[in-house]
């Protein structure tokens, strides 16, 4: 019985964090988020060289060959550092291809995902809040995909999109490559400018089937929920850390504001909300890898809970900073923006709680 990280896992987190602190301080984060596409291929390639793009990709396909827990630990660090880029969609796409089991598609795409040579993303949600594989309206008929995906991470710059849709046999996954006929993208403005989404419209676009049934779709969704939860934890932990540090240096009434119990107690309450929740997403990730009967429910619980906590911590962090926290120049709002994305993307907390209730047989 061991519920803790291995030395390798701690080292993985330290390595990514140190690299990002050197390569991607918030000055670069801001440059990327103010760019047209929000995607910095050089940064993504650097992360890929560290192994981040292919953490869950087996070594045989050129990846790091680790588990979702390791990917979630990376997501925590990206959340802590507010790192822009396509990690979430790319990892969901890799999970989808792995779970889909199509050897040809795996051989074609996984090595390029792991090396960062290809940007592959994942398109699931439709309509308003519809992330259920059985309810998808996108249709494939005779190898041609038609439908609309309103929130595709980095869809407008991706080399390929793994699309969840339905054909005459029910749900499945198809790959649509960049520049294919009948595909158009509308770039959308997002609160969180460090994780871009676009609306993809498919009008008879050529699509290659890579998975049948909803299994791979659900696994990719659960992976996404856990990665979002881990990002939320990392971001919230950073907001708390920034606020504790700020409160030690900001002086009012002749003393650091950290000396006021009004400040101390608010920070203590946030720490009390946050710290135990680390174990919740750890457990969800471990369940994804090893406890299949608990996996789906824990992913839903962790996403709903962590994104609530992130929202609360980011909100009080800004409040505790006073006026400076409300300025564009001060970095804190970058994390608050990520909290907005994490809460909304893949579906709101109440829906995931309802799913968790149903999965418990309640």
């Amino acid at each position, binding site marked *: 019985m061991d519920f803790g990280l291995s030395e390798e896992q701690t080292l993985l987190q330290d390595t990514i964090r140190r690299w990002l602190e050197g390569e991607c301080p918030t000055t670069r984060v801001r440059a990327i988020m103010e760019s047209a596409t929000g995607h910095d291929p050089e940064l993504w390639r650097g992360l890929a060289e560290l192994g981040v793009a292919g953490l869950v990709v087996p070594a045989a396909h050129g990846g790091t060959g680790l588990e979702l827990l390791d990917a979630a630990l990376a997501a925590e660090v990206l959340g802590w550092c507010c790192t822009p880029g396509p990690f979430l969609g790319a990892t969901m796409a890799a999970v989808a291809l792995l779970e889909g089991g199509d050897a040809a598609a795996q051989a074609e795409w996984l090595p390029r995902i792991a090396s960062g040579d290809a940007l592959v993303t994942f398109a699931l949600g439709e309509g308003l809040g519809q992330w259920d594989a059985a309810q998808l309206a996108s249709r494939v008929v005779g190898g041609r995909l038609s439908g609309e995906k309103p929130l595709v991470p980095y869809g407008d710059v991706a080399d390929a999109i793994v699309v969840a849709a339905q054909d005459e046999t029910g749900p499945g996954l198809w790959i649509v490559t960049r520049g294919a006929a009948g595909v158009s993208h509308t770039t959308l403005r997002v609160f969180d400018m460090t994780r871009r989404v676009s609306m993809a419209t498919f009008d008879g676009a050529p699509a290659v089937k890579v998975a049948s049934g909803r299994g791979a779709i659900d696994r990719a969704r659960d992976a996404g929920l856990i990665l979002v939860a881990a990002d939320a934890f990392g971001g919230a932990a950073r907001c708390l850390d920034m606020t504790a540090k700020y409160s030690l240096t900001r002086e009012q009434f002749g003393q650091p504001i950290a000396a006021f119990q009004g400040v101390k107690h608010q920070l203590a309450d946030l720490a009390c909300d946050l710290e135990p929740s680390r174990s*919740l997403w750890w457990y969800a990730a471990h369940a994804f890898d090893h406890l299949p009967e608990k996996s789906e429910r824990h992913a839903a619980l962790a996403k709903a809970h962590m994104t609530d906590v992130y929202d609360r911590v980011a909100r009080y962090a800004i409040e505790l900073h006073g006026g400076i926290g409300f300025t564009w120049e001060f970095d804190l709002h970058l994390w608050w923006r990520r909290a907005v994305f994490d809460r909304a993307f893949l579906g709101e907390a109440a829906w995931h709680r309802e799913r968790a209730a149903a999965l418990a047989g309640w």
Partner: protein
Amino acid sequence: MDLRYSAEYEAFRAELRAFLAEHWTAEDKAAVPAPDEGSVAASLGANNRTDERATAFRLKAIARGYLYRHIPARYGGSEQPPDALKASIIAEEFRRHDAPFEIMSQGPAMLAPTLIEKGTETQRQRFVRDTLLGKITWCQGYSEPGAGSDLASLRTKAELDGDHWVVNGQKIWTSNAQEADWMFALVRTEPDAPKHDGITYMLIDMRSPGIDVRPLRQMTGEADFNEVFLENVRVPRDSIVGERGKGWQVSRSTLKHERALIGSPTFARRIFDGVVMMAQGIEIRGRRAIDDPVFRNRLVELEARLLAAEYNGLRLLTTSARGSDPGLAALVPKLHSSTLGYDVSRLAMDLMSDRGCLYPGEPNAPAMGLFGRAYMWYFGMALGGGAPNIQRNVIAERGLGLPRDARR
């Protein structure tokens, strides 16, 4: 990360189960009537039994190395090497089997480790073994009417008169003072020293002349704690633990043990599981409560907090087994679990719809009003061992590195 137990531990668990099945039988269980459903005693199960059967069983369990593992054998413990995993397996299996476990009261949990650490050989020999078996029971004489969160301002004084201390003053919030044989108390022996340096840790026989115990009724209606008045109580000179004037340091280690005792989410889990069952069984305006989307959402929201607390416990177990520093994870459980328990109980009150206003035990109260007791009881849980705002200070200062409050 691996949540499975290795073969060694699975074998240990199997042996333990066989031991429990053989030595704590249905007959043993039935020998004493069960306490009132929903009472604090019921929540402890067989833990608080100290009748002959329970004592005989505990002695066997100690001989096998299952109980009081951190206490040396010469003082009545089983003196086992520290093993957080075995300790958690033992606690889990004893609870599952409802067998008498280590007695969860202040004597075994707080006084015994303190005596082992700071007491004289005579004190250890005299008290520890009988305390572990519940033959000597203890109450804690710390808080006073004027010394709560600011405990070190306590004023109960002890003055030397020949071979005795003469103690005068008043203690308050003293749980179990009516039944306790002894009190471990903090008293002021050096009135001219700075306040933290003038305190001595003292063992006081509760049958001494001059002690007056007056029950205090809690908001639950029960009287589990008391005021204790001490008037010219004579205490033998050698009844102090540690040096004269060093009682504050002695008591700090004791408080640490109490926080560990209160931080566990096991009680919140029992209530939560009960709340789910009630929600499945109760109909409000013709609809099962569990089918109400609002209740479903609130249940899952609370379950996530509960699971976080439980998995945080697994994490603490691992840091303890590895000997690494748990940091914040060890500082937050008490505040986290007491807040959670209150919130779970409040949901139970809402699930009882309009009958939530009925007092526990009323015949038409759902689940006999069981949850109403927990609802009130959690105020005590939040306050015991230090008020929530004191916990917040500890988290902020030790966990987040914020400055200590100005203290005089």
